């Protein structure tokens, strides 16, 4: 299957069908996993081979669903673009939705560019219903589903995939994909900006795979959209507790949710705390402030003088401030090290408590500077050269 960029697909498709496909590839987000948009491959034509292009009218659509990718064939006829398409549902040979449940098929309007996208969404809904029917083979998993369904937090944002039975053991397997109702809106923007990818919607998905019908082998996994992952401190943020044996999703999912929420709160708080810290330093050191990170409030540089000795203090605030202590780096303005850098000393442990507020921290920092500077000065004179 050749990976085709959306633009190439749009170029090759028959002009009359282009608007329909356009809305699918450009705006098409179906399902929970909206970071993966709909992909189009295998563009072929139903016209005779001597028809001049572009005349492609049939393609394969890749739809992410419950951790799987559905590959559905969509068949139009370029010569009759007003007719609705036909579908082949890949390996799901038993999936046969009722046409009456697909209003966009029954009242197909080729003039509406969104028609195909809407129809695909309706098909996905029917597919979800079909998977639910398959889930009924296992009462345990059905119970899981139903219990989650009742909770309004999770019920509406759940996709299930009742997979094929394992051909070796005959075991039934299923996967639940849940969107966690965690509010990421308060995460400071600066944290979310620095990603190479299109951030899209910020979402956290929990995927729980049941390898057997009795729920003895359960593998949970947390998926965060890239910006959130970055904002929360990288892949270490994805550590979640293991699924307790004999436990239920209805208990486990809120647990994970809480964990994630807490982390987000930490991050948010951290931001605010940092801001507060820097504000306090600003007010305490006033003119001594050289520069500070005004967006993320992660760094701060002060130029201070004590008994005619000038020195720089760089303060690095960690992500999980105030839990983690800021790093102080003292730097002499006069002395160089052998490698040509300014002589500096790093201080990671100094009197500190996370419970202090910004003001208190600034005051204590000031006191610490006073106590530490003589030491530093000596060191600078001793080890550095002018």
């Amino acid at each position, binding site marked *: 299957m050749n990976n085709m960029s959306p633009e190439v697909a749009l170029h090759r498709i028959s002009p009359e069908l282009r608007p329909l496909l356009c809305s699918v590839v450009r705006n098409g987000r179906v399902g929970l996993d909206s970071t993966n948009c709909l992909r189009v491959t295998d563009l072929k034509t139903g016209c005779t081979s001597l028809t001049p292009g572009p005349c492609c009218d049939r393609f394969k659509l890749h739809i992410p669903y419950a951790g799987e990718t559905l590959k559905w064939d969509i068949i139009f006829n370029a010569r009759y673009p007003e*007719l609705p398409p036909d579908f082949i549902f890949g390996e799901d040979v038993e999936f046969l939705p009722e046409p009456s449940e697909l209003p966009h098929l029954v009242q*197909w309007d080729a003039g509406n560019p969104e028609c195909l996208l809407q129809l695909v969404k309706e098909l996905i809904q029917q597919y979800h219903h079909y998977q639910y029917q398959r889930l009924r083979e296992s009462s345990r998993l059905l119970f899981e589903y139903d219990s989650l369904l009742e909770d309004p937090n999770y019920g509406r944002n759940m996709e299930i995939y009742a997979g094929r039975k394992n051909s070796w053991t005959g075991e039934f397997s299923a996967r639940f994909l849940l969107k966690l109702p965690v509010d990421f809106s308060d995460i400071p923007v600066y944290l979310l900006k620095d990603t190479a990818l299109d951030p899209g919607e910020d979402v956290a998905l929990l995927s729980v795979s049941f390898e057997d019908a009795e729920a003895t082998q359960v593998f949970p996994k947390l998926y965060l959209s890239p910006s959130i992952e970055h904002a929360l401190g990288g892949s270490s943020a994805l550590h979640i507790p293991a699924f307790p044996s004999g436990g239920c999703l209805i208990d486990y999912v809120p647990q994970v949710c809480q964990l994630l929420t807490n982390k987000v709160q930490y991050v948010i708080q951290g931001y605010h705390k940092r801001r507060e810290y820097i504000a306090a330093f600003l007010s305490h050191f006033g003119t001594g402030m050289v520069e500070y990170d005004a967006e993320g409030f992660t760094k701060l540089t002060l130029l201070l003088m004590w008994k005619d000795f000038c020195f720089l203090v760089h303060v690095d605030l960690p992500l999980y401030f105030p839990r983690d202590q800021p790093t102080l780096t003292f730097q002499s303005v006069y002395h160089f090290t052998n490698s040509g850098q300014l002589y500096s000393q790093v201080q990671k442990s100094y009197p500190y408590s996370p419970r202090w507020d910004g003001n208190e921290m600034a005051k204590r920092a000031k006191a610490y500077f006073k106590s530490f500077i003589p030491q530093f000065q000596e060191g600078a004179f001793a080890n550095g050269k002018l």
Partner: protein
Amino acid sequence: MAASISGYTFSSVCYHSANSNSDHEGFLLGEVRQEETVSISDTQISSAELIQVVEIHNHDPCAQLFSFYDYAGKINEESLNSILKDRRKSVIGWYRFRRNTQQQMSFREQIIHKQLTELLGVPDLVFLLFSFISTANSSTHALEYVLFRPNRSRFNQRITLTIPNLGNTSQQEYKVSSVPNTSLSYTQVIKEHGAEFFDKDGVMKDIRTIFQVYSALQDKVQAVCGEVEQSERVKEKIQEDVNKLKQQIALRKRKTAEEEKRLRESQNADSHSTPEENTEPSLASPLSRITFHTPSAPERPSTSPNPPSYADLLSQDDSLLSSSSPPTSAALLPRPQAVGSPGHPTPGPLGMALGLGLGLGTSSNPVTTPSTPYLGNGDGSSSDSLDRQAAGQEDDEDDEDDDEEEEDEDSSEYENLVSEAAHLPVGSASILAQGRPAALSPDGDARGSQTT
């Protein structure tokens, strides 16, 4: 379940499909038969196997898509009827053609199939899916076809579709398709011109003629068999006679040898005065016999009713094949009558040779004068004396035998011979002819070469 489609229907469907610039669909008309095969194997006496055979006779293409169903896939029965009209009863399936897609029933096709099954009342409605795959540079195009019966279980849906005579016909013979031709024009033409080839029973006329020829040949063969049997029997009989005569000859020889011995001994015992007298009478007797023969030879034709019988013989000769006739007559003719024979060309000289005795050195035609041991080589050479004697004795013996055997008939030898000839069936002439030539070996081994 097996399915077959005639080659022309298949190509017609392909033609319609390939010429459409979009997807194409239509109905398949035909019939479904139940075939029961009873097989006998070593382990079972008989096992009956019942298979359903679907035969596709014809197809009915739809002019456009969505012609009998709407966007939701619901079939409009009126449209269906207007498309199918009176062919509705012979619908056994439907087909669909789509390019560059998978060989799998699509969503709408499954919906339509279910409804068609109900509406048409065909429980095992089949679905033929054509798929046309082209390579990217349009150098190779593949037409794939799969026949489904979707109303069965999921795992047994595909049926093989056989197209008679599509394949490697260098290894197999061209098969007559079991799928009948339902075209009206075809049946009309066959009806009109069929009488030239078929008789009223529907059997080809040529077959009857050939059969008649065959029967005639068989009759002839049977007749010939009968003749062969008869001639074999006669041959057997003659062979027996010949053997008997041989024995008698041998006996007589011994007797004469003993008599001469006795005579000689007695003569020797009496005196040596008249040695010649002994021989003379002995010589005289055969000579006298011989001379007895010769004068009588000319007489025979005049006094006896031979001429008519001879004429009969001649007429028989005429009717026979030339190669065989001379031998028969030659077999008989060398008897003295040949001197005055009315002129049957070939035996004539032979007869002359005999009749005139042994001094003549006539040329004998070895080919046509197979018959006579009497001839020897007809040279009259001295070595023939014994032969002549033997011949003469044979004559006597034959005469005697004939006289003995056929007393009720005329005493004339010829009559006997002729009657014998008359008894001989036509076909046996060749056999006698075959026998005689052996007697004419230049070595004069007349006796030894008698046919057995």
